[in-house]
């Protein structure tokens, strides 16, 4: 018999098919359920022109120089207890080589209420710092020159108020608005979709977002006025493709709203930034980041007609997946976080937060926070991964997966459009249902051990070693309550009430609300007072609970 030269892929396929297969019942699809082949070859590479970093559609990165030009910003999200305590933590992190500040607020602050509101009981300073008025913000940034650092603030419904407080502190430090830089999360749509920290109904909420984008485009040009976030969508249980699709759909909804206001796309698009989860399924995440840039660039150029290249570039912050951390054998979280951080870096993130190993139990201790930061420094300086731009570009697998995630996202854009856009889809519970279904499917896979979490549903230990956790002193609550009451009693009452009544009038009309909020903040009106003034005009929102 004559031996015929065989196609190498066919030969491999035969050997693979007849070879041994693990029979442990573990899923081979990605964590999001995308089926994965055992091997990818040149045949899986999409037919397209060579893509280059720094060039449209930016799949390979937005900078021609990648991390050779500039490393990512190591920005650890932190905040707890009082402004004074948190100020100390910021100085500690800056002294340890952190390159930007990222403020975590406590629940009452996030929900726009003062520390002495009845429903703030038990919540003060627990998952972030308590900020009630400009006085607390002054303490938070005491001794930190706002002209020299950039600050990210994770806040949504009351975002405009907290930005105004930051601006007022800058003003007091003698730093002009044009010199301050940072990012405001200010992404209300994902609150309705996933994190649920909404207060006003969708339309007035959108007005506040557009007001801040419009105002900052003129007055605070270095500020990223919105960080359109997939992180919370993912943490709530979505798949990678849902995270990507819902986030970019939100981004387009903000663009639509700004255009409707009469803004020119190239006047604001370059200040839009994004925030994604860096989850544990390594290649899927890298593909997600690459797909995100390509889709955004295409939509901005093709659909919205943006002319300025900066409007096409999707810049993003990434945070490792809180939801992937385990309370069991928590030291393993250091390894998980390192792998997730590596995915973010290989995906070309502009800035990164690495979670601390104890974050699944409480806020991080100093030691855990330092290990998390050191993990990024290790990636940047020891591993060599920052030396080559988009090192996985051209990988048969990663390129094919990038295309697949892009395709799934485009499917979702069509479905959202059929529902009438993002806000009608929120009101119909579409996103909420999609996310809950994905979360439930994943939980079922864990229950059936079709997916394993080390230390949780396999490889468990009987006795967990206790680890040290950060406790919030219960006295802090009464101290913060006393502080906000003292601010109210010491301020110029007439100036404060005038500012609030002007704000109320403006809210009922069409003016941009930012100057009115800034004036109320300067007059030491509290966050709760400003929010309540707006609630009087806008009302509040309750979601229809679905399980």
């Amino acid at each position: 018999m004559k031996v015929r030269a065989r196609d190498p892929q066919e030969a491999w396929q035969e050997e693979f098919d007849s070879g041994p297969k693990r029979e442990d019942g573990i899923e081979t699809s990605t964590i999001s359920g995308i089926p994965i082949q055992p091997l990818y070859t040149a045949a899986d590479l999409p037919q397209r022109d060579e893509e280059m970093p720094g060039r449209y559609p930016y799949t390979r990165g937005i900078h021609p120089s990648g991390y050779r030009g500039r490393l990512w910003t190591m920005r650890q999200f932190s905040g707890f207890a009082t402004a004074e305590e948190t100020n100390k933590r910021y100085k500690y992190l800056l002294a340890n080589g952190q390159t930007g500040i990222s403020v975590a607020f406590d629940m009452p602050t996030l929900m726009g209420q003062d520390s002495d509101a009845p429903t703030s009981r038990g919540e003060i300073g627990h998952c972030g710092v308590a900020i009630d008025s400009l006085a607390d913000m002054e303490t938070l940034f005491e001794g930190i020159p706002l002209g020299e650092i950039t600050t990210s603030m994770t806040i949504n419904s009351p975002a405009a108020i907290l930005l105004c407080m930051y601006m007022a502190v800058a003003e007091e430090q003698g730093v002009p608005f044009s010199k301050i830089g940072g990012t405001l999360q200010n992404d209300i749509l994902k609150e309705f979709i996933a994190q649920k920290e909404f207060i006003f109904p969708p339309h007035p909420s959108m007005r506040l977002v557009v007001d801040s984008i419009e105002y900052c485009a003129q007055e605070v040009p270095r500020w990223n006025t919105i960080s359109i976030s997939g992180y919370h969508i993912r943490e709530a249980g979505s798949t990678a493709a849902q995270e990507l699709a819902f986030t970019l759909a939100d981004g387009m909804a903000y663009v639509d709203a700004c255009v409707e206001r009469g803004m020119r796309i190239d006047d604001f698009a370059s200040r839009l930034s994004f925030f994604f989860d860096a989850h544990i399924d390594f290649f899927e995440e890298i593909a997600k980041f690459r797909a995100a840039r390509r889709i955004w660039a295409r939509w901005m150029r093709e659909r919205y007609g943006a002319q300025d290249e900066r409007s096409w570039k999707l810049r993003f912050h990434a945070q490792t997946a809180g939801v992937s951390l385990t309370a069991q054998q928590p030291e393993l979280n250091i390894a998980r976080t390192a792998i997730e951080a590596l995915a973010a870096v290989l995906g070309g993130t502009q800035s990164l937060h690495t979670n601390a190993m104890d974050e699944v139990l409480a806020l991080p201790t100093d030691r855990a926070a330092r290990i998390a930061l050191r993990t990024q420094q290790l990636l940047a300086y020891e591993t060599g991964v920052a030396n080559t731009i988009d090192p996985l570009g051209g990988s048969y697998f990663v390129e094919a997966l990038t295309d697949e995630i892009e395709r799934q996202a485009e499917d979702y854009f069509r479905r959202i459009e059929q529902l009438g856009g993002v806000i009608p889809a929120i009101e119909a519970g579409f996103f909420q249902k999609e996310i809950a279904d994905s979360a439930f499917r994943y939980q079922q896979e864990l229950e059936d051990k079709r997916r394993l979490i080390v230390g949780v549903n396999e490889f468990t230990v009987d006795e967990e070693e206790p680890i040290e956790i950060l406790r919030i002193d219960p006295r802090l609550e009464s101290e913060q309550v006393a502080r906000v009451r003292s601010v109210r009693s010491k301020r110029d009452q007439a100036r404060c009430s005038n500012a609030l009544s002007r704000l109320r009038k403006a809210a009922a009309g069409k003016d941009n609300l930012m100057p009115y909020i800034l004036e109320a903040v300067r007059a030491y009106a509290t966050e709760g007072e400003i929010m309540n003034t707006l609630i009087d005009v806008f009302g509040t929102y309750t979601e229809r609970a679905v399980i």
Partner: protein
Amino acid sequence: MPAKTAVKPVRIVMAKVGLDGHDRGVKVVARALRDAGYEVIYTGLRQTPEMVVDTAVQEDAQVIGLSIHSGAHMTLFPAVVQELKRRKATDIVVFGGGIIPDDDIAALKKQGVAELFTPGSPLQDIVAWLRKRFPEGAR
């Protein structure tokens, strides 16, 4: 219990207390309990202890399941138990879930919370616990 009466399903009010909106856990648990044959009423977000107890009493529930991720469990879980006492409804069993350190679990059990489930708890454990607690359905 008369032998011929059909077993009444146990009714559970699932509630998010506190200010945070992290409803992934509560929704997954609610769905799993419903699939396991329990009658589940999910209240939605930001319920005060008074609202939760109101719902449980009105719905004639046997169980309240509380979820929180903001760190306010030491204030709000005992507040629900206290409110049940005030309303003389202490036959309603309270369990909870969320990010709750071990020391707090012990303290909460002392204060009348029947059981606590932390991240990573299998759904089967929650169902098994309820089955043990209500072997014959609702009385």
